[in-house]
């Protein structure tokens, strides 16, 4: 089985993606900031699935280390089949409105870090003419809303980046998958979500993602009903939309 790199493996969705891939017997490189947690995940995956996962340190915001990071990955597993990018930061909308440092943190984590590392990986995949790139964006990136447009705009930028990348890499046999989850019950959203039927569990999202990778999908809403919800939201004319409390 070929190796898959999961960046942001300690995130709520990232860890479940690791489980889902491990269950399918993929070897894994798991990258993130919290090395202690990565080692725990590696041991856990070893016990649960008898699969080897190698922890690698990844600093999303230290852009100048990303080249070196990819070299390390490639030296451990020379033929990485694909990458799943799960780094994300919700931030605090109201803080970010007043404090550029918070706004910048949201943009850098969700957008710039993705561009920085995925550029490097895309170039290699393009050259060798195989591989896949999957990144977690968000339904929040489909339309700006007053309650979370800082996060939303960074995810929207990521969505468009991935769209362009998909277009570029299509001729090189490299698939790019954009994942747009709705509300997911993770530590990122702890205490923010009520028991609404719109809330999904990360296990469920991870299953859909891994299936989407296998089927070489382009864009998936997870779960699918978000596609319908966002279609309606996108269709509301701006003069009406701007007066809504969303």
């Amino acid at each position: 089985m070929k190796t898959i790199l999961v960046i942001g493996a300690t995130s709520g969705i990232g860890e479940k993606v690791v489980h889902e891939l491990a269950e399918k017997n993929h070897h894994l490189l798991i990258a993130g900031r919290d090395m202690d947690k990565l080692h725990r995940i590696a041991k856990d995956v070893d016990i649960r699935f008898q699969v080897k996962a190698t922890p690698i340190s990844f600093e999303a915001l230290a852009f100048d280390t990303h080249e070196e990071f990819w070299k390390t990955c490639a030296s451990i597993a020379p033929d990485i089949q694909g990458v799943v990018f799960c780094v994300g930061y919700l931030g605090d909308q109201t803080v970010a409105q007043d404090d550029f440092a918070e706004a910048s943190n949201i943009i850098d984590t969700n957008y710039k870090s993705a561009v920085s590392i995925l550029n490097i990986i895309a170039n290699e995949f393009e050259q060798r003419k195989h591989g896949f790139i999957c990144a977690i964006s968000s339904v929040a990136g489909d339309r700006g809303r007053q309650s979370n447009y800082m996060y939303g705009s960074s995810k929207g930028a990521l969505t468009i980046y991935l769209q362009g990348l998909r277009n570029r890499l299509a001729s090189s046999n490299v698939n790019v998958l954009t994942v747009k989850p709705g509300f997911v019950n993770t530590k990122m959203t702890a205490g923010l979500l009520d028991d609404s039927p719109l809330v999904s569990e990360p296990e469920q999202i991870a299953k859909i993602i891994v299936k989407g990778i296998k089927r070489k999908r382009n864009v998936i809403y997870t779960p699918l009903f978000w596609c319908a919800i966002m279609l309606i939201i996108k269709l509301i004319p701006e003069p009406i939309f701007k007066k809504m409390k969303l």
Partner: protein
Amino acid sequence: MSKIRKLSGWGNYPIQNVKLQQPASQKAMLEKLSISNAETYISRGLGRSYGDTALNENGNVLLQTGFNHFLEFNQADGVLTVEAGVSLKEILDVSIPRGFFLPVTPGTKFITIGGALANDVHGKNHHVDGTIAEHVLSFQLATGTGEVLQCSREENHEVFWATIGGIGLTGILLNVTLRLIPITSRYIEADFTKVKNLDEAFEEFAKDDEGYQYSVAWIDCLAAGENLGKSVLIRGNHSQAPTSLDLKSTLKLAVPFNFPSFTLNRYTVKAFNEVYYAKHSNKTKTLVDFDSFFYPLDSISHWNRLYGKKGFLQYQVAFPMDTSRDGLIEVLTKLSETGTASFLAVLKKFGKQNDALLSFPFEGYTLALDIPAGNARVLQTVKELEQIALKYGGRIYTAKDAIADAETFATMYPRLNEFKAIQRNLDPNGIFSSSMGRRLGIIGGHS
């Protein structure tokens, strides 16, 4: 990140405002605990305790379910170390294919191992294997002073026996080491025995119970008069045949019964009970999958919602051996008189008590049932049932309780003061607190 939200236990009663938090890591959680402020905390797993065990009205509730990593598994001797948020389901998923089973399991696998220890859970094998405590080798506990204590029968043994059954009030469990039991099959060889009344049930339990690792009776609480205590005994052992450990293959087996989902009232429950009793015949050596044998209700997710928005109360009582018959007759008579409809009532013989200070089981008989909440009469009935427990030297179970008072609790748990002393030592600033802890007078106040 947190905001005030409404939360309840599995019984949907009571519902309280809490600050629900999901710490990013155990380290981050410990740092949060070490900040001295007026905040109080209780840990919470999968929320299967029925009442207010894992609630902290207007205080913080710390979700532990994100701490669900397996840390060590020795497949030679079945010794397993996991973080406290690992669920019993996750353990079974890993252990069964490798020939191991939980040494003790309650009637749901959707609980965390931390919750299992905090409530010192028991299962159908209490009469031979005791509670989960008997199979725990050690654990790590974060106390109210920010210290992390390694606890076992040898090391910090007082903390060990206060924390098991201590409903989260001595601190936060970080990880747990326990010994699993070897199995060669995922199936249980079960015998079903119908009995007409309580005396016949007692006779069967007395005669045969030692021959079964697992033993429980489903009891019809609406049966009265000479049928009082009409039951079906469901008893079994792990199948010795090397049938299958593979969780993905499913052998086609007759499921003993599928639970219906209808509105619960005394008529529908009565009808259900009639059918349930009639459907069972005396069968022996029936192979039953572990899932339907141990977890019949787990296949219906959120079965607790069957009771509607008002929720339900659980009542579980244990009577000492010598007063069991009288106590149970009085409880069953009361239930049948008031027409209190219990969907699923279970009778079981307990084995010996352990050393955990607030552990529920002691030698005798236990009866567990659900009662739909929602009106004052039901609360009154449960209060009266509590008094019957007291009258016969019995006690009720914290994991199930939502309404008992401090005085009643202190009478039922004679080692409460020993617990309080150890608890105060571990948490001198009183950062651990729960709605149940305050209601039952386990913490706060001085005695």
